[in-house]
């Protein structure tokens, strides 16, 4: 890993083993430009349900602190998430809610790119637009285009191996990662 690479953290919004979004998240290193290295974020599903009383009594849960530290240390973050009920999965939103309460909010001025896979025609776009709204409220810098909205996911992932096999999708992901690297360098002044 070279010093001049941008280090990107990958967060997946689904927990299930057979998740298309998780499969896409695992594929990212193979599609990344040479100047970008990627690694998966610590788990977000060990955080308890957000309750200010917990925060006030015993402080931030260790899982929240670990997640926040990893986000802070990264040059950029990619969130790959499904859409639940036309919006952000509650578990992922719960993790964001926890870290948003820290003194040094990890998402502040952090470059973030979004990706989603879904079974139907909108490809998770409702979730992405909510997530943009949510992360903007905590001052993240949301990457614009190209968007990665993987529609009709079942047709684009191999039935047996669950690998992403649709070439146009692979191409747009590659394009987004290349664009995201430039975006990070411009915003972080890391040239």
């Amino acid at each position: 890993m070279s010093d001049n690479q941008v280090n990107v953290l990958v967060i997946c919004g689904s927990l299930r083993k057979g998740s298309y979004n998780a499969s896409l998240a695992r594929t990212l290193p193979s599609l990344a430009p040479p100047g970008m290295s990627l690694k998966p974020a610590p788990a977000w599903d060990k955080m308890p349900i957000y309750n200010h009383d917990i925060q006030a009594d015993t402080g931030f849960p260790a899982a929240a602190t670990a997640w926040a530290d990893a986000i802070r240390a990264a040059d950029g973050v990619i969130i790959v998430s499904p859409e639940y009920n036309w919006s952000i999965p509650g578990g992922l939103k719960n993790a964001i809610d926890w870290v948003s309460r820290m003194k040094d909010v990890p998402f502040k001025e952090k470059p973030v790119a979004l990706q989603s896979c879904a079974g139907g025609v909108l490809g998770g776009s409702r979730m992405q637009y909510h997530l943009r709204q949510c992360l903007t409220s905590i001052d993240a810098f949301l990457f614009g285009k190209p968007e990665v909205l993987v529609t009709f996911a079942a047709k684009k992932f191999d039935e047996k191996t669950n690998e992403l096999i649709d070439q146009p999708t692979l191409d747009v992901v590659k394009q987004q990662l290349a664009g995201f690297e430039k975006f990070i360098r411009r915003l972080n002044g890391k040239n």
Partner: protein
Amino acid sequence: MADKALNVISICGSLRKGSYNRMVMNALPGLAPEGMSIKEAPPFTDFPLYNADIQNSTGFPAPAQTLGDDIRKADGVIIVTPEYNFGIPGALKNAIDWVSRLQNQPFAGKPVALQSASPGPVGGARVQYDMRRAMVFLDALTLNKPEIFIGNCAQRIDEKTGQITDEPTKGFMKQQLAAFAKFIAAHGSKN
């Protein structure tokens, strides 16, 4: 006025003891029209974070089934929620994500009313419009008006006694509950 007694349940989106939204929710029975009883739904604090693998292996967690049952039995549901990061608190959204997967999905055709309290001036508008969107997907019948956005809630609610001190706020809540009763009578399930 409704011909039959209406049994409405209320769900609070905040967990902390000193929650303003909880104080608002607690005031509901006293502001309800004759014939409408309002009581708090079973809690969602012990729901695991949604993961389809849990659902497909050990089944729905018992508390999720309990909440689903109570929503189904109720004539209407009132959701009183704060706004976290311009959106729905993750824990509340997680509860909705679980019950949305139940057979005979409990929110389908269910009359729903929304309220929110916030220390800021906007009073929770963003969370309510996000919630409406999730409710559209779930095919619920969300009451359009009047809307209840309790902005600058610290000036309207006495933290120590838990009582709403602002008369106009109570007036608007009374109006909404009366409208909700008519709405349920006109459009709710006729069982």
